[in-house]
């Protein structure tokens, strides 16, 4: 029986429940602050082992904050982060530092995420070094193997980041994230800063590495086609909350939430002759400091009813593996 229990819980590498991250706005003289930017406000989801969970949403909706809060790069305000059966929030600083071997992050900007004063070899080897592989020969060998795996050459080892192109730098960032053989990698818009021609190379590299290293990805992006291409399941965020989460097929074919519908209708089509019915959203995204009452989307929703203004919709599994937070969805 215990074995069964273990099996059920071990299906999910990461379980996040009711995650909240508020950033205090700088207050007055005594640094007391009454206002908060509610960047992430009650987010619950799970990631299965070996899958890729994509998160999409417009700028400022809390995607990046979610990713970083899960890794405790930002201290969560509330909520539970169950990573591989361990509540990350309960770990002490040193325990968390040790645990970082099992999780890593790939940054959006390949220019600012590499230390300009370190060689590429040192950058990639650092995770091994801080987790106890102090033997130089062993580490150099591991780094060389990793360089080859991400499509870089051995002579790149001694180069500095400024000598590389954006795509090559992102490969360095990926190598650094993968070398400690983590279980979870948060990919924070890893391709949005790159040329379209490079994007697909990097995406394929990520896919290959996922297969060979048994990686689980939390893939954050704002490009729907990228997310559709790489994800096993896709979550849509709006103003600090998930509005919908499903497998790409279901999400792209039958979006349940009005926001998802509007988002999908905005994807440009390659054929200019096809007339598309765009669902135009009115107004701007409300401020995350004072989010609207009830459903956060009701101020811009075309089908909102009175109930939406007062009652926050429940996050429910409307079909198997299809979650949505909307009163009207059924």
């Amino acid at each position: 029986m215990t074995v069964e229990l273990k099996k059920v819980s071990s299906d999910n590498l990461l379980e996040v429940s009711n995650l909240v991250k508020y950033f205090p706005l700088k207050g007055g003289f005594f640094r007391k602050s009454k206002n908060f930017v509610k960047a992430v406000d009650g987010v619950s989801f799970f990631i299965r082992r070996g899958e890729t969970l994509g998160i999409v949403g417009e700028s400022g909706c809390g995607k990046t904050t979610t990713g970083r809060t899960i890794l405790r790069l930002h201290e969560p305000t509330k909520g539970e982060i169950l990573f591989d059966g361990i509540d990350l929030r309960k770990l002490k600083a040193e325990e968390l530092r040790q645990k970082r071997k099992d999780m890593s992050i790939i940054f959006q900007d390949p220019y600012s995420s590499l230390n300009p004063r370190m060689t590429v070899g040192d950058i990639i080897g650092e995770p091994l070094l801080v987790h106890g592989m102090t033997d130089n020969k062993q580490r150099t060998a591991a780094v060389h193997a990793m360089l080859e795996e991400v499509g870089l050459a051995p002579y790149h080892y001694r180069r500095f980041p400024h000598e590389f192109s954006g795509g090559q730098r992102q490969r360095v960032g990926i190598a650094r994230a993968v070398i400690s053989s983590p279980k979870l990698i948060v990919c924070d818009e890893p391709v949005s800063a790159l040329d379209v021609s490079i994007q697909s190379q990097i995406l394929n590299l990520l896919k290959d590495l996922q297969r060979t290293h048994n990686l689980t990805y939390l893939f954050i992006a704002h490009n729907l086609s990228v997310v559709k291409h790489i994800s096993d399941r896709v979550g849509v965020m709006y103003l600090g909350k998930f509005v919908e989460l499903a497998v790409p097929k279901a999400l792209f074919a039958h979006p349940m939430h009005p926001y998802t519908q509007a988002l999908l209708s905005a994807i440009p089509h390659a054929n200019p002759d096809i007339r598309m019915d765009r669902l135009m959203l009115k107004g701007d995204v409300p401020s995350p400091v004072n989010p609207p009452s009830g459903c956060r989307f009701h101020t811009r929703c075309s089908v909102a009813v009175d109930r939406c203004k007062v009652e926050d919709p429940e996050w429910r599994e409307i079909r198997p593996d299809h979650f949505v937070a909307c009163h009207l969805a059924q």
Partner: protein
Amino acid sequence: MTTAQPQVTKPYTGMSTKEETFWSLTWYRFRRHKMAMISLAILLILYTIALIAPYIAPHDPMDIHIGPRFAPPGREFPAGTDRLGRDLYSRLLWGARTSLSVGFVAAGVSIVIGTIVGAAAGYFGGVVDDVLMRICEVIMAIPTFFLLLTVVAIFERSMLNIMLVIGFTTWPSAARLVRGQFLSLREMDYVEAARSIGAKNSRITMWHILPNAMAPIIVSTTLRIGGAILTESSLAFIGLGVTSPPSWGSLLEGGRHTLTVAPWMVMIPGALIFVTILAYNFVGDGLRDALDPRLK
């Protein structure tokens, strides 16, 4: 009509074949700064003289009655003699030792304390930052020179004490500089990346933040050395400087009562102090431009 010759080129690797390290680029940019290069040469000469002073000085700087009193500069005494008949040339050579090492050590003490305090304040922030910065402000609120006077009056006026005192009274401005650097650099993605892979705080500060904060620290150190030499000279001028062996400031002080009889006693050490500090300022400016091309 010419036929196209097949060109043999190296495969394009997207990067230069020469290894362009940070320091080689800095040196390349520094070399273009004419005044800074001249100043650097002057400083190197002065430091060499200071190092070999015991071997090239013709007389013991403290020996009296080596020649007549107030002998003007001439063949026998290149810089003349003072009121006790001491050889000023030898005293100036030894003075270079005192003045230059005071500047070097005092600025070193100042920048080391400042870097440690500033790094802690900037990296940890919060209460640590508040406490450390308030301490800095308290020290900075006291006019430096009067603080120096008080401390020098209390402690023995040895060379080491003067160095330490200048260092201990000037570190807060260095701390503020370093703190500012750390505050901005700790938000960089590569620092976040270092934290994400589980690097310890010591590693993050030493390997990720400090090397990137070095440019302004180095510039500030050069300017501080000049400042420290000047501070010691000012102390010496009112009779509180290093006297054995004399610093340039002490020599200046020794000559000020007999300015009309023996003007060289003031002019030569004064010129040396002037040139040294000017040279340090030019080198500092040159380094600032060389280390941070964005400032141009």
